[in-house]
């Protein structure tokens, strides 16, 4: 298999062009590394070759490492009986050796003479190892392609650049200049990448190779020497023990620590690699980077994050759970019923994806209000330069706002997002379906009502489904697809194809109270309310949640989602469950705030106080008049366990009851749906990291102290008793084997 094509032109410039067979995007694997090294060896050994251009035959340079390889390398090292850390470390060190050899380009290290110039020529996106290869080259060219993204996004999946990218970028740009790439994983289009020092030249796409070759032919020996290999090199911004470097490092450490709340291992290890590496020479720094990178690969969090945030997210987006034998059901025309916040959001994402949209409400005025909401979202995009004025006009042109049901004619999908009232929903279902062809699928965006009940209003329950969006629709990446008891495969395929079109991530679950996401979120808020009622310091609850890696604490979440909604759900659930309703003193907290009209952010008063501009000023301490603070406060660990298990046990029960059919969906859905501790990889990954037996022990102790809601579900107990893991028992491999 040829991955790297080698070719020497008449001027003596060798071109090494990356073209991974059978793939749209180059990704790096072990064979790739071997071929790349062989190609450069050949160029260095051939006296006729004056220099090299490293490029790609595809429209992009590379998407990064094949992340499966990292997992495999670890598994192989483990299987061979070696110390897996040592196996990984050796593998990484070998990569450094190879890349360092290319960087030094055959020069004599002492005199820095005799090196062959190497230009990097990227036609498009270059991420991760793609850019790290660029960083070893002596000059970086990128085609002027505004769609291209250049950067090092490793941190987003729980690792950091470990093929020299950390060490090289710090030395190129300094701690300050490099941090947006290393710490935040920012990707930039070529011009911006150049302005921020990541690359050297942006050239017209059709001149990319010519310009790169021209540089190679004119390059001097000094051009082949990296700044860190040249005499008198000083790190931009100063090394850690210089006055400026010291301040920067101290501030940087604190900022990252505060922002990540210590929950994420990768930023910590990255910072250590930066600091320790910046104190020593380049080659020692690479070895230090390799040690920290190894520690991150060995940390279960990185594996869990890669699995959920990259591999499984992508698998779900590519239709891992789509009924296989249903042909493409892409949506051409969608009807959206209800032009409120949700309806407008759904219409927006659909129109943005190129789908023709009919946005309906009871009168023209209401429908137009929905259209105005779409225009407002687009205006925001124009301001942030995400879309042009023309683009905005095109999107708006795809939306017809009307109260007229006849406009739905020809729609192949309808999503209703009207008031959460079964009667109203039944009416609009009938009215809409009267206009639709028999193939059309009808979806409801309900978040609380059982799909199977709503389906009874439909002419064809087989083609009726739940598509549950999260608010705000334009920002939230998860879509929860709910099958009613009679929903057929075509409806599922339709929903999945629609979600793919609007570039979101789907999970498919079965119909049960609150489906999956809300089923887990509601007890999270409920547990916080119980703690307030018990007199636990609410700041402790909020901070505990942040330390777990939740983007916002459950109490703040209560204000954002509104107290009257919580009150309504509470009342409805009580009504539905009757004597089975689990009584909670937390409900008294909701009721108290509701009675006082402190409904949350929307009333500028809730669990928190707000100033007149709507900015949160602090927790409302008046709550303690009714629920006084307890003298004895619990340890933060107990608060964390309560908050975590309130959600995780629901996820386990959802799996146990068959609401969830695939734990991948449970994990990806939790992170994207409600920001569940991304470092953990999701509730099931968290259980595996913790160990089921340990979690059962925590459950037992919490149940004794706080009640039976913490009883370990039978499934969790069984996994613990058998010494299994959730991914071991329910992962896709186990499923395939069964």
């Amino acid at each position: 298999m040829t991955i790297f094509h080698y070719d020497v032109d008449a001027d003596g410039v060798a071109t090494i062009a990356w073209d991974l067979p059978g793939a749209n995007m180059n990704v790096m694997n072990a064979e790739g590394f071997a071929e790349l090294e062989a190609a450069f060896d050949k160029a260095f050994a051939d006296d006729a070759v004056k220099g090299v251009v490293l490029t790609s035959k595809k429209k992009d340079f590379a998407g990064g490492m094949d992340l499966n390889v990292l997992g495999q390398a670890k598994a192989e090292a483990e299987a061979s009986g070696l110390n897996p850390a040592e196996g990984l470390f050796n593998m990484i060190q070998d990569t450094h050796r190879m890349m360092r050899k290319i960087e030094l380009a055959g020069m004599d290290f002492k005199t820095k003479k005799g090196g062959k110039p190497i230009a990097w020529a990227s036609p498009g996106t270059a991420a991760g190892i793609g850019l790290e290869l660029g960083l070893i080259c002596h000059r970086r060219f990128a085609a002027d392609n505004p769609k291209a993204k250049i950067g090092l996004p490793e941190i987003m999946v729980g690792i950091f650049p470990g093929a020299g990218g950390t060490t090289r970028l710090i030395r190129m740009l300094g701690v300050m200049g490099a941090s947006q790439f290393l710490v935040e994983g920012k990707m930039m289009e070529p011009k911006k990448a150049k302005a921020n020092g990541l690359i050297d030249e942006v050239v017209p796409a059709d001149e990319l190779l010519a310009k790169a070759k021209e540089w190679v032919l004119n390059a001097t020996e000094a051009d082949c020497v990296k700044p860190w290999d040249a005499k008198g090199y000083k790190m931009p911004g100063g090394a850690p023990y210089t006055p400026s470097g010291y301040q920067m490092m101290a501030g940087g450490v604190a900022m990252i620590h505060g922002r990540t709340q210590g929950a994420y291992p990768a930023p910590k290890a990255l910072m250590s690699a930066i600091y320790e590496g910046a104190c020593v020479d380049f080659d020692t720094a690479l070895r230090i980077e390799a040690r920290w990178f190894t520690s991150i690969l060995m940390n279960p969090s990185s594996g869990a994050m890669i699995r959920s945030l990259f591999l499984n997210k992508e698998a779900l987006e590519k239709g891992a759970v789509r009924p296989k034998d249903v042909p493409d059901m892409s949506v051409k025309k969608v009807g959206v019923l209800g032009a409120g916040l949700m309806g407008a959001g759904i219409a927006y994402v659909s129109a943005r994806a190129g789908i023709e949209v009919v946005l309906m409400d009871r009168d023209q005025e209401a429908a137009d209000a929905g259209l105005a909401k779409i225009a407002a979202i687009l205006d925001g995009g124009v301001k942030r330069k995400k879309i042009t004025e023309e683009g905005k006009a095109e999107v708006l042109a795809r939306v017809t706002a009307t109260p007229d049901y006849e406009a739905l004619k020809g729609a192949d999908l309808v999503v209703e997002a009207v008031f959460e009232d079964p009667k109203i929903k039944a009416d609009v279902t009938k009215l809409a379906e009267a206009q639709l062809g028999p193939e059309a699928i009808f979806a409801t965006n309900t978040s609380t009502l059982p799909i199977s009940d709503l389906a009874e209003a439909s002419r064809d329950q087989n083609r009726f489904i739940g598509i549950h969006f999260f608010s705000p629709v334009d920002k939230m990446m998860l879509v929860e697809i709910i099958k009613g008891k009679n929903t057929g495969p075509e409806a599922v395929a339709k929903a999945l194809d629609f979600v793919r079109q609007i570039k979101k991530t789907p999970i498919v679950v079965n119909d049960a109270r609150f489906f999956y996401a809300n089923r887990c979120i509601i007890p999270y808020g409920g547990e916080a309310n119980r703690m307030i009622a018990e007199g636990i310091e609410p700041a402790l609850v909020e901070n505990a949640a942040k330390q777990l890696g939740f983007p916002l604490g459950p109490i703040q979440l209560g204000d954002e989602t509104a107290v009257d909604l919580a009150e309504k759900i509470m009342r409805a659930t009580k009504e539905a469950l009757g004597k089975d309703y689990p009584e909670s003193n937390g409900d008294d907290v909701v009721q108290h705030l509701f009675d006082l009209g402190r409904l949350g952010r929307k009333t500028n008063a809730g669990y928190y106080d707000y100033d007149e501009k709507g900015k949160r000023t602090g927790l409302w301490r008046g709550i303690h008049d009714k629920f006084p603070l307890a003298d004895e406060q619990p340890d933060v660990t107990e608060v964390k366990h309560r908050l975590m298990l309130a959600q995780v046990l629901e996820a386990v029960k959802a799996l146990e009851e068959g609401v969830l059919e695939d734990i991948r969906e449970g994990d990806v859905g939790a992170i994207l749906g409600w920001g569940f501790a991304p470092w953990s990889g999701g509730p099931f990954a968290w259980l595996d990291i913790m160990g089921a037996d340990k979690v059962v022990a925590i459950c037992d102790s919490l149940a004794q102290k706080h009640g039976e809601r913490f009883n370990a579900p039978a499934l969790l107990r069984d996994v613990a008793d058998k010494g299994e893991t959730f991914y071991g028992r329910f992962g896709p491999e186990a499923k395939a084997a069964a």
Partner: protein
Amino acid sequence: MTEAYIFDAVRSPRGKGKKDGSLHEVTAVRMAANVLNELKARNDLDESQVEDVILGCVTGVGEQGACVARSAVLYAGWAESVPGLHINRFCASGMEAVNLAANQVRAGAGDLYVAGGVEMMSRVPMASDGGAIAVDPYLAMSAYMAPQGVSADLIATKYGFSRDDVDAYAVESQKRAAAAWAEKRFGDSVFAVKDQNGITILDHDEFIRPGTDMQSLGALKPSFKDLGETMPGFDAVLKIKHPDVERVNHVHHAGNSSGIVDGATAVLIGSKEAGERLGLKARAKIRHTAKIGSDPAMMLTGPVPVTEKVMAETGMKISDFDTFEVNEAFAAIPMMFMEEFGADPVKVNPNGGSIAMGHPLGATGAMIIGAALDELERSDKETALATLCVAAGMGAATVIERV
């Protein structure tokens, strides 16, 4: 066991730790040598009898680097047989020098020591010695490191001290220090720093602001608010360790925190036999010493656990102490001490402290032992406790008893 006694304690006046401070022109080694020779002169000391000169100094770089104690011995023209030891336990360095000397005397490892400290903060800026604890990510994150002032604000928050509370404390510190100078309460412990021609450079603490009142302090902006809340946001780091805190109340500023000053001090310590041999009169016995490590995030709570340790080890009660010196690193520290132990405010830092007179980091620990001794003698009382909070979460204490 041999007991350790204090024969004498002298200190320099404290000069403003800036370019316009009177002592700015004096080198650190010269300051340290001055104080050694002052001690020698006052006691007619045969310095060749001294087992070791132990000096605390926090920022041991530049002219304060490379064992400033040995440099001072040589600069002072002392017998070359006298060695020198430089130690650093941050703000307790001077105290630790005294305690180390005392404990060696008690153990029989030599019977006469000079212990003290020097810090010329105008010449060798605080924190210019670097150090991993703020910048090594692994360490800084493990320790939840923040600048001291932010930690002091956290302590004030946890104890519920308001801005007015800490300002009121600072006003009182200024009042007491001014009164102490007016009444010459420091006796002849403070010597005049003179140049090579015998011309006086400084003979009094020049940092004191006697007219300080609530209004003048009220005008000052909190010093650590931005570091805590905005750039880079140390409050968030501290709250990881202290999740019960909703918001850190930033109350400290230049007027209620210890002053940056220049100064040096030396204490003569030895056994009863050494005193008899050399004709030195013991002024006090060093009854007990202690040091502890504490939460590095709150950082400055050390005086509480170290005092508890002292009491546990000696069986003493708070009421057994006639006077307390609790270093005023920040107003919240002595306030915390009083709150925890119910100590009588009249007895705590009766002659003012570092807020009014300044805090020459490496010297203060020994200076407050001297101050406690002066106060016991002035008031004709018996027992004193001196204690300091220490960076990175430590504490130190010394109990002295008049003989």
